[in-house]
């Protein structure tokens, strides 16, 4: 909306670091970096009050490309790091970035429980259906008949993981799918995701130009979802069951489950009381 009150003090580039990405030109992850920085600028969050946490993978390189506080951990463990950080520091805005392998394969259990625990995090998954950092192996979201990897020359033969279905069933409080071909829409959805309390899951269809060049057609395959979000998980589930994975651009589900937010109680100085219980 247009408004004459100029609260904005930040530009997208204020959230970018000096470090230049190593991603291949054309990679969808550039768009995601752009969308995240634009969303942060739009929310005018001071960079020092934001943290981006990631695991391992191409997309997990994002923290170092931002000028906010970043943590680049080990493969698959971004969500627990972010959970600990957000619980310990509820004053921070915490984003988690990563790929489909990091989030749904090696980190699959954390994904289930992050959705279930519903800590106030925004999880942006760049789904390119391939492991890029290790030269293009099948990921949990790869189609069963994809024969592009020497590791699975005849395809995996395994049905792909359905991140949004699993996220919904596990209790994610906000679910959306966006396309890397529309960074502006992505920024808008990220703003909504950050502002929505609890665990927000944003799946980004983010093509891998090097190992999945055929994904270039995604730009034309994706279509804006025809219906607006629902707050009814059952309706959202039915939509996902008939979804071909290319409905993008809108929030699918917004729940109202209260976030997991145990408070640090302020009652310092009672270590003596704890010790007194041991005294005879």
């Amino acid at each position, binding site marked *: 909306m247009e408004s004459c009150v100029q609260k904005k003090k930040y530009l997208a580039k204020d959230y970018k670091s000096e470090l230049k990405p190593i991603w291949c030109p054309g990679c969808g992850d550039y768009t995601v970096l752009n969308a995240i920085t634009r969303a942060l600028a739009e929310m005018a969050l001071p960079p020092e009050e934001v943290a981006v946490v990631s695991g391992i993978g191409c997309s997990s390189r994002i923290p170092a490309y931002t000028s906010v*506080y970043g943590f680049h951990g080990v493969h698959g463990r971004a969500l627990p790091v972010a959970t600990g950080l957000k619980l310990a520091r509820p004053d*921070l805005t915490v984003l988690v970035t990563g790929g489909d392998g990091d989030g749904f394969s090696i980190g699959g259990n954390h994904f289930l429980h992050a959705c279930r625990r519903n800590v106030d995090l925004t999880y942006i998954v760049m789904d390119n259906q391939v492991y890029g950092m290790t030269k293009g192996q099948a990921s949990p979201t790869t189609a069963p008949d994809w024969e592009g990897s020497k590791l699975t020359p005849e395809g995996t033969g395994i049905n792909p993981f359905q991140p949004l279905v699993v996220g919904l069933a596990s209790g994610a409080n906000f679910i959306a799918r966006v396309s890397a071909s529309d960074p502006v829409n992505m920024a808008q959805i990220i703003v909504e995701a950050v502002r929505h309390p609890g665990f927000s899951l944003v799946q980004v269809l983010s093509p891998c130009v090097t190992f999945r060049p055929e994904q270039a057609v995604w730009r034309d395959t994706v279509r804006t979802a025809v219906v607006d979000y629902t707050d009814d998980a059952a309706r959202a589930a039915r939509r996902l069951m008939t979804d071909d994975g290319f409905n993008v651009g809108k929030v699918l589900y917004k729940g109202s489950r209260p976030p997991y937010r145990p408070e640090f109680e*302020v009652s310092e100085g*009672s270590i003596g009381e704890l010790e007194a219980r041991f*005294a*005879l």
Partner: protein
Amino acid sequence: MTVQSVSLTIAGSGGAGVVTAGSLLLDAAARAGWYALMSRSSGPQIRGGEAAAMLRFATEPIMSHDDSFHLLMAIDWDNITRFSAEIPLTANSLIVGDPAHGDAPAGLLKNTPRQAALPMSEIAGTIENGRPNMVALGAIAAMIGLPPAAMRIVVESALKKKGAAAIEASMAAFFAGIDAAKALPAIPRLPAVAVDTTPRWNITGNEATGLGAIRGGVRFVAAYPITPATEVLEWLAPSLAKVGGMLVQAEDELASINQIIGASYGGVPAMTATSGPGLSLMIESLGLAVAAEVPLVVVDVMRVGPSTGIATKSEQSDLNIAVYGLHGDAPHVVVAANSVADCLFTTQWAVHLAEAMQVPTLVLTDQAMGQARAILPKPAELAFIGQREVAAAAVEGQRYKRYAMTGSGVSPMAIPGTPGLTHTADGLEHNEFGTPSSQASDHQAQMDKRSRKISQFNYGDHWADIEDAEVGAGDTAIITWGSATGPAREALQRHADAGGKARLISLRLIAPVQPEKMAEALRGITRAVVVEQSHSGQFYRMLRAFYELPAKTLSLHQGGPLPFGPQQILDQLKQLAAGSA
């Protein structure tokens, strides 16, 4: 002086209430002014299995169980022989059983202990709501000299919710047991003690660990339940809440360790507690904490391994994984508690070390000390509080270097929320800014710095407990660590009572190694025995790798779950002495 003590075991099957009886006895002994140590053993059942409470009482502080038990009070015989290895009996021991349950099984009689009958169920049957375990307690109290008044206070407190009738029924059964004990043979009795003004505590090793963490400044704990570490967490959950902290139950150990990494990165001192299987899962992320320089504490309450091993029993066999388990060159700190009380000191110290050096610090305790409950002198107040060197404000015109080269190797850490100091902490090798780097020079510089910060740190005298026999150290040492320290201390005392000289060196700081301090501690020592509860002698091998040991050094090592008795270690001392003659 060797401790004047009495050791006894109460055993029985599900419903016999032996664990409750043991706790009541321990509490009553505390009321009577005694010191005590209690361990428990049980069958594999979740409920209703056979159980044994092993207790030792003395009028002075005690560090270890004895070599054998004076009394086995068996409320029934169901499957009791599963404990026979854990309850060593001699010809002087006394087995008291209930004739209603028949004769003692042959498995208990190998060393021909004395036997006597106490019709516990029959006596209990004469009292409305009387229970055999209270009859047993009465008999025990009479035999060991425990004043009934102490038991009344404890029973009243324990049964307050059940009402006066329940208390009177229990006490009636207790007094009936005292009467019945007149017919029983004697076992050692402890003298009545004058009211002891020394402040004493009733605490388990796992509780002491939790308290040490809180005293050290830990305010965030994430953990996954695992035997025998769970009680650390159960104690911490409500206790943290009282001091402005929190405990999160994580989905697995991978999550536990990474949650505490996140919390600590956020500036809140953090810890997890686990056992061997959980530690194995945490190893990769411990390396992350080394590389990203995130302070944290991981407590490993060791149990018998490998794999699931024996979850409920003790072993000192996680030393190797704690010291060497991380891939790459990953300098970190490993400390070990050597008694129930020391769980407090060592954990508190560990928080201090972790925060001061921004390094993951492992605390090794074990099932034997973790789940043991002791009546002990109140532990001293310690000054250690975790103090992290924090980068508080941006320097004009300078980009913040998270991993700046410093003399100490410790780089001031910016806590999220601090303007102008944003950076990305990284498990990838990095330069001073934290920017990923595959340059040999950056790797070398960062490795040097991470190594320097723990090798140059001043650990003071806490690296080991060094104790000489009253008559002096002579030329002989016992070198040990962890739970093996208790029986080693008692062996040293007995050795001294017999006029022997020796020195005890119990290492608290396992890594980084302290060769110079060890050389000082071993000055004049020509003979040593290394004592540890590990099948492969992990500690001995580590000592051989990093320290100059006396030419004549014996290795006394055995796997769990049976603890060392003091006599086993004393025998080694004698063997060393004989060898020199």
